[in-house]
């Protein structure tokens, strides 16, 4: 499947974009990102128009980038404002500037033609809420982004790939409900587990010692944004009729599944929690545990990418009930990419 264009993609965490020149390829397009003195995030094509030298390997002069090879100088809007040895600046001396929206501590870029609708960008308010604490990271994946979409839409794999961390037998055993909002292009997958084993990831971080009710409510906004609303509570503890839920633990897990190239992916991940907000040990534990889980996925999907690259065309997969959400996601992605 191709990569969907004319879409918003997460290009960086806010804290990654600063004084330095950050190189990152998104959907096959090399970008250089930095922050102006006024605090605006900027994303430009990472190729000097002169001899292609990466601007990310160049130098800043205030809000401008001076190419490290011959000194072509670019303003934040991509316009070349100085060239060496002459006063005339060629009319075509400009690098593409990407539309950037920064919200919820994520830097989004519009990959495509024209101007994107900023209001269409999905939100993750937990990332900046004072009621939550977030740990996060980003891992390089040597596999196509569709494999990570498949992985995250079917969490039954937790039982086998992530046993001892977030996987318990009941995850794979519990039926799911899948819903697609065709107009909005959003896929929802819900797995509600009652009276089940508490995996170490949640037992250690919440302090719950007994059995739990565990909800996994997925919200996938193709192409790149994935939210897992996770609710953990001692068995039998239900939310109040008004939605008030003070005895439960809420963990907002999220991913930005961002194609770097056709066969490599930026695997942005975060874990936001509404408990133990001041506990650095819990933060460290959740960070290290979730990173371990992400790396287990990375290892498996890197292998899968090699398998796919080596196989003859026409391999016929088999899908079963656990794949209902993944199949829905594929269909929405196919619509976005124009693929069949």
């Amino acid at each position, binding site marked *: 499947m191709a990569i969907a264009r004319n879409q918003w993609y997460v290009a960086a965490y806010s804290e990654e974009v600063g004084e330095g020149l950050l190189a990152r390829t998104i959907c096959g397009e090399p970008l250089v990102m930095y922050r102006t003195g006024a605090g605006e995030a900027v994303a430009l094509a990472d190729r000097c128009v002169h001899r292609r030298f990466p601007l990310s390997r160049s130098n800043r002069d205030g809000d401008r980038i001076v190419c490290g090879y011959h000194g072509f100088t670019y303003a934040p809007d991509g316009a070349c404002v100085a060239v060496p040895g002459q006063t005339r600046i060629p009319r075509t001396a400009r690098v593409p500037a990407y539309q950037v929206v920064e919200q919820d501590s994520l830097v989004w870029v519009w990959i495509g033609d024209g101007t994107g609708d900023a209001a269409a960008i999905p939100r993750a308010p937990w990332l900046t809420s004072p009621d939550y604490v977030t740990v996060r990271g980003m891992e390089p994946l040597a596999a196509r982004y569709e494999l990570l979409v498949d992985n995250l839409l079917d969490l039954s794999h937790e039982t086998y790939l992530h046993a001892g961390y977030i996987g318990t037998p009941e995850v794979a055993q519990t039926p799911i*409900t899948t819903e697609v909002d065709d107009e909005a292009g959003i896929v929802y997958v819900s797995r509600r587990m009652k009276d089940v084993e508490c995996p170490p990831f949640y037992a250690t971080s919440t302090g719950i010692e007994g059995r739990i009710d565990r909800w996994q409510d997925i919200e996938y906004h193709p192409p790149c944004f994935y939210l897992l609303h996770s609710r953990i509570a001692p068995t039998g503890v239900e939310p109040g009729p008004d939605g008030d839920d003070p005895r439960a633990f809420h963990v907002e897990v999220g991913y930005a599944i961002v194609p770097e190239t056709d066969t490599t992916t930026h695997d942005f991940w975060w874990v936001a929690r509404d408990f133990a907000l001041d506990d650095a040990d819990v933060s460290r534990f959740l960070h290290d545990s979730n990173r371990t889980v992400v790396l287990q996925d990375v290892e498996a999907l890197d292998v899968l990418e090699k398998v796919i690259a080596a196989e003859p065309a026409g391999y016929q997969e088999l899908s079963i009930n656990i794949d209902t959400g993944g199949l829905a996601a594929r269909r929405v992605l196919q619509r976005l990419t124009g693929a069949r």
Partner: protein
Amino acid sequence: MSAGRLRVEWSPGSDRLTGICHCGARCTAEDPAAVWAWLLSHPDHDAS
């Protein structure tokens, strides 16, 4: 269910999937690909 929503329920204790179209039509099957194909055939749902 709101307009434009397609739903697939996996009945606990069973292998059966129930597809529910936004028009209210329902089907049951044991193959998720078949359920999605049926849902997407709206408004020409085959009897199922």
